[in-house]
């Protein structure tokens, strides 16, 4: 069938099963928008900033597991999208971003709104394409989706010059992809898997170190099964919260800089680390030479470059966690039982009793941790929790009872303030039946606050719980600990009226200072089914604890005062 390039873009997206596109128009992408106007195969959401469009597509992808799609124009439209690309790249999120580009004849002339999108996005995309001929457009879009979702997932940019979207040609969407230079290893070496089975059988203190790759690979059930059949304790990274399930007795908690005591001690004392889709990030390992010092390491990862990057690995297994786990479990079947590691579990239980994840609650002021636990009590598994970046993010990761994968959506790798709200919009589009709560801070929420308008216009009722400490709290905490309390540019005492701000944009606002008000506001916001800001005045100087100072050994934690007393 003959059509212009713009229509081809729409047809290709429809062929890929895309339901929702998040985007923002402009000169170089207008041809495509003209075709979007004429079609009804997918919905388009007009965010109020391109960064938000990309985060929304990202949130959608994290919740559904499908490829998220965003669309932006050339020049500033594209540069606004870069933070979104980088955020998705660092967390390996499958996404396709389509950007307009100046016409081919203008490329290289510093044309109006020309920027080298391919050059800028190269280090923050899994791959990118500049379309140079209309005839290759369908194949490129097909390949973009394929690359985004296979192997280690990631964002792919397709940059399309304006004359190509205007040109008319024959549209044939390929059924198959064949990229001879791109063949991700997914199976996992049989011999290595057998060796790993033996290592587990020989170990006295094995520990599952569960990372975000397990979520991406949809392998949570298998991880639970593996843990369960052997009674093997597990720790989760920030990106893996929900994999084991909050009530699971084998789950020690989150490890790393703000990990709980028993998780970090487990990693420090284990004799066998079973790393599943985790990448030994510095926020997880602390001082590398002290990390898992007594352990051999099994590392399962789909990205060979993750293996041996930071620590020496004894049993490297390159492959998709899901498939590798199936075979690992089969290899262990009938050869492990829950008694085998009971001594080890007791040690960890003692550690947990010694310093449980806790906080000192107050009757006079809302503690941020209390607010998070309260949301957990009221909504539990029902909610999807997104977050921004800062103390509130760490408290959410520590205190919310996550029960399933894809319930917890946050920017772990890049740590992007401003991610939470637009990601919540994407999450809600992806899972409309769920209550979506963005746990955010008074700093972060302002970084994409314009999305109030998007949420109101499209009736996407996400609830932003602003844990308002009048501070860039996480930076303030570092200043308290490491800069002799010189609070350079972190005091946010000058505040907008969040309630009115929400209302000015068609949402609903609440100011909350007591626990009773908190409950009331949350219940009301859920019932009203509108985008909401719940502005919660919380204790200003609360610190996130435990804390392993950057570069320190995991077992050297600054603990909560109350925990010390015990």
């Amino acid at each position: 069938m003959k059509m212009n390039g713009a229509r081809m873009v729409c047809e290709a997206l429809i062929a890929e099963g895309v339901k929702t596109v998040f985007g923002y128009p402009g000169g170089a992408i207008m041809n495509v928008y003209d075709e979007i106007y004429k079609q009804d195969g997918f919905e388009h959401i007009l965010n109020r900033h391109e960064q938000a469009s990309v985060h929304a597509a990202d949130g959608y992808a994290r919740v559904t597991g499908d490829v998220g799609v965003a669309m932006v124009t050339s020049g500033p439209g594209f540069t606004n999208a870069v933070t979104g690309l980088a955020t998705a790249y660092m967390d390996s999120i499958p996404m396709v971003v389509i950007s307009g580009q100046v016409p081919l004849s203008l490329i290289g002339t510093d044309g109006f709104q020309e920027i080298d999108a391919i050059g800028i996005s190269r280090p923050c995309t899994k791959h990118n394409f500049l379309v140079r001929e209309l005839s290759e457009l369908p194949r490129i879009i097909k390949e973009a989706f394929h690359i985004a979702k296979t192997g280690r997932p990631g964002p792919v940019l397709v940059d399309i010059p304006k004359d190509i979207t205007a040109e008319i040609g024959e549209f044939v969407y390929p059924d198959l992809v064949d990229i001879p230079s791109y063949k991700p290893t997914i199976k996992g070496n049989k011999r290595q898997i057998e060796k790993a089975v033996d290592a587990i059988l020989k170990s006295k203190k094995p520990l599952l170190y569960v990372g975000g790759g397990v979520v991406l690979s949809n392998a949570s059930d298998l991880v639970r099964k593996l843990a369960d059949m052997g009674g093997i304790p597990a720790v989760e990274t920030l990106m893996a919260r929900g994999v084991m399930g909050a009530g699971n007795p084998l789950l020690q908690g989150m490890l790393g800089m703000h990990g709980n005591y028993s998780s970090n001690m487990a990693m420090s004392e284990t004799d066998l680390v079973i790393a599943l889709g985790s990448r030994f990030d510095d926020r997880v390992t602390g001082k590398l030479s002290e990390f898992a010092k007594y352990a051999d390491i099994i590392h399962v990862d789909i990205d060979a470059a993750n293996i041996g990057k930071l620590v020496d690995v004894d049993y490297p297994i390159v492959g998709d966690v899901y498939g590798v786990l199936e075979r690992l479990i089969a290899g262990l079947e009938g050869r492990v039982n829950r008694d085998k590691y009971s001594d080890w579990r007791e040690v960890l239980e003692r550690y947990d009793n010694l310093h449980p994840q806790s906080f000192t609650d107050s009757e006079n002021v809302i503690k941020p941790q209390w607010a998070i636990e309260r949301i957990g009590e009221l909504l539990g598994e029902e909610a999807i929790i997104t977050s921004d970046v800062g103390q509130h993010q760490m408290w959410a990761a520590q205190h919310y009872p996550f029960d399933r994968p894809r319930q917890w959506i946050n920017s772990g790798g890049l740590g992007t303030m401003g991610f939470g709200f637009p990601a919540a919009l994407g999450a809600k589009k992806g899972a409309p039946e769920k209550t979506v709560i963005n746990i955010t801070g008074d700093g972060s929420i302002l970084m994409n606050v314009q999305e109030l308008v998007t949420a109101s216009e499209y009736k996407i009722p996400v609830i932003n719980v602003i844990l308002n400490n009048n501070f860039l709290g996480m930076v303030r905490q570092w200043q308290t600990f490491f800069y002799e309390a010189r609070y350079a540019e972190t005091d946010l005492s000058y505040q907008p009226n969040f309630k009115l701000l929400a209302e000015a944009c068609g949402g609903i606002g609440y100011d909350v200072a007591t626990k009773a008000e908190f409950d009331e506001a949350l219940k009301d916001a859920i019932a009203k089914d509108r985008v909401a800001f719940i502005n919660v005045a919380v204790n200003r100087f609360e610190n996130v604890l435990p804390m392993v100072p950057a570069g320190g050994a995991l077992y050297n934690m600054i603990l909560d005062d109350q925990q010390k007393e015990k």
Partner: protein
Amino acid sequence: MADKTRRVVSVLVENESSVLSRVSGLFAGRGYNIETLTVAPLPNTNRSRITIVTKGSQRVLEQITKQLHKLVPVYKVVEHEEMVEKEMVLVKFPIEENLADIQALCGAYNGGIVNVGTDIIIGMVADEPFRIKHFIEATQRYSPIEVVRGGVVAIER
């Protein structure tokens, strides 16, 4: 810290316009060292071969191979162990220098005189990289005006 080893890596890539920037950008972005880099298309294909001489600890060298392999247009990464390795150099001398001496010098390093003009003599040599270094040192007494090195190419034995 860990000792740095020299390594020659050949990268077979799809001939697309931005592939060289993907490869060189990877090195720049991840802080890997590039000593020399040469690139040319392979005959009768739409592929090119990029030859890179790099230096790093074992861990870094392993990362270089793995990270290169992750680039979508990369077919193959060869870490050379048993190889024949050559580099080319062109040197320009003033016409006043002794032509026969220069000829003999170039000859000693598998080369010769490739051009003699009214003002200058140009010598060319292709040899192992360490020999190229020696050659350039040896040319110093003939007042070289310009030295152009070509970068290493290698082929597995």
